């Protein structure tokens, strides 16, 4: 079984086993749910300018729910703080609300459930798997933390919130609501980079926003857990679909080393793709405390 290749083009199509064992719905339900959530977030913001229904106003960097509750992105706030602007109360409250939310549901849940770039890089990943395109360069997955540091140091030195001039995440979300202009080229560039140069390149290696939310979610209680890891048949499908495959291994294969079944790495995006794609239902959502309990002899 382990001789099977990860990429398509070979006989084994990622997800086939799961579809056969569980059917389409069970194999794709979290993915569909995620797309629904992503579209709803965008849709709620668009409802204002398009239909005049103002449930959500602004965009992901800062917004107002029903013209009362403020929400602000803590990463963008941090950049303005480093640029020397402490901010207004409204923004601070908004930032706190968002930060606490992601602290609870897992920082990078932002990435897989909200971020507008995610469907773009997911699409590139999917197409790359279909076409069997491998990586052309290798970059350390730590690069994003260096870039994160940079996005905070540069404002401190130059006084300008530099990253937000180019940040494709806010650019795309803002663009869809307020007009993209040439911004599409940047998004296309990310798609092509992920497709032809480095699979999972942007989100998994470069994006400082993802790195920031990893830090936010370091101690989040909501985690994915390989509860049923003994049933694993080494089909490797979960590794193929996971945007951060390196996070799976300890939890899935670490039993002999005494590692608990919970995926503890803050890089896990809580997308739940592994839960769906596994034909023998190894994974489920769980809490990080479960790890300690199951680790008791």
């Amino acid at each position, binding site marked *: 079984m382990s001789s099977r290749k990860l990429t398509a083009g070979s006989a084994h199509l990622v997800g086939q086993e799961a579809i056969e064992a569980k059917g389409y719905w069970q194999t794709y339900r979290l993915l569909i749910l995620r797309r629904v959530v992503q579209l709803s977030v965008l849709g709620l913001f668009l409802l204002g300018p398009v239909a005049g229904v103002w449930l959500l106003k*602004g965009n992901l960097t800062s917004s107002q729910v029903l013209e009362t509750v403020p929400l*602000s992105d803590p990463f963008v706030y941090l950049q303005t703080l480093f640029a020397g602007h402490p901010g207004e109360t409204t923004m601070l409250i908004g930032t706190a609300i968002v930060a606490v939310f992601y602290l609870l549901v897992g920082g990078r849940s932002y990435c897989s459930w909200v971020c507008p770039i995610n469907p773009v890089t997911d699409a590139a990943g999917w197409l790359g798997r279909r076409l069997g395109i491998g990586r052309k360069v290798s970059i350390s997955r730590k690069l994003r933390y260096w870039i994160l540091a*940079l996005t905070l*140091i540069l404002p401190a030195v130059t006084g*300008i919130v530099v990253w937000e001039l180019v940040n494709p995440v806010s650019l795309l979300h803002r663009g869809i609501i307020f007009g993209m202009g040439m911004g599409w080229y940047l998004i296309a560039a990310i798609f092509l980079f992920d497709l032809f140069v480095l699979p999972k390149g942007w989100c998994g290696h470069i994006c400082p926003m993802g790195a920031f939310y990893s830090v936010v979610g370091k101690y989040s209680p909501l985690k994915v857990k390989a509860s049923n890891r003994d049933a694993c048949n080494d089909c490797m499908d979960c590794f193929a679909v996971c945007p951060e495959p390196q996070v799976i291994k300890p939890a899935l294969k670490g039993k002999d080393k005494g590692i608990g079944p919970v995926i503890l790495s803050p890089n896990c995006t809580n997308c739940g793709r592994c839960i769906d794609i596994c034909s023998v239902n190894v994974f489920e959502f769980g809490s990080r405390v479960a790890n300690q309990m199951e680790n008791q002899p």
Partner: protein
Amino acid sequence: MSGREANNRKKEGRNRRQFLTDSARGLCSMGLIGVGLGMYGRQAQSHAPEAIRPPGALPEKEFLSACLRCGLCVEDCPYDTLKLAQLTDPVANGTPYFIARDVPCEMCDDIPCVVACPSGALEKSLDNIDDARMGLAVLIDRETCLNVLGLRCDVCYRVCPLIEEAITLEIERNTRTGVHASFIPTVHSDHCTGCGKCEEACVLEEAAIKVVPTALAKGSLGKHYRLGWEEKEKAGQSLMPDLIKLPTRRPENSK
């Protein structure tokens, strides 16, 4: 030393080397990206003079560090004056601005854009729109302005929300005809808010009156300059009483 230990040593060495190359690589890429971003950031600071910031905007440099690019000001502007800059616009990406010739600011009494701003990039302390200083209107081309040519167009003056304060018509002699007067539209910086109504309304193909950033429009006296007549008024008397006595020179035989 047993073979195993030596092996471990080797491995450790390799790990250390790996770590060092990794760090060096990280630092180098970070340096490169940093320089690129930094330069782009500097570049982004210079924006086209026709792009005017919303009322209450902090000075440009601070504004760029404060604005979240959320567009709340844009969405709350009832006249669709404001827009958010796109990637290739001549304004820092994502920040709000308007082009007066397209849609000027209508100077709302309740200043919804300022109220909406969550970050303080638009200063909440601005509670009277007449105090806004988005820029300064300048009669930038006297060669085409109809009023300067001696006609009575007056449109910029008429549309000014602060008519007779921000724009007045100053009478000059029309030297072409020699017998008529020209009514020169004249902007006063102590009242002009930079809303751009005049620029929008100018009847010419290309406006002769334009709103530009205040810093571009205004000269400034040297800090040490004193205006004699103002000082005199302050002091209540001439500052150099009887200081200079000039000898009266007359032709010898005159009285």
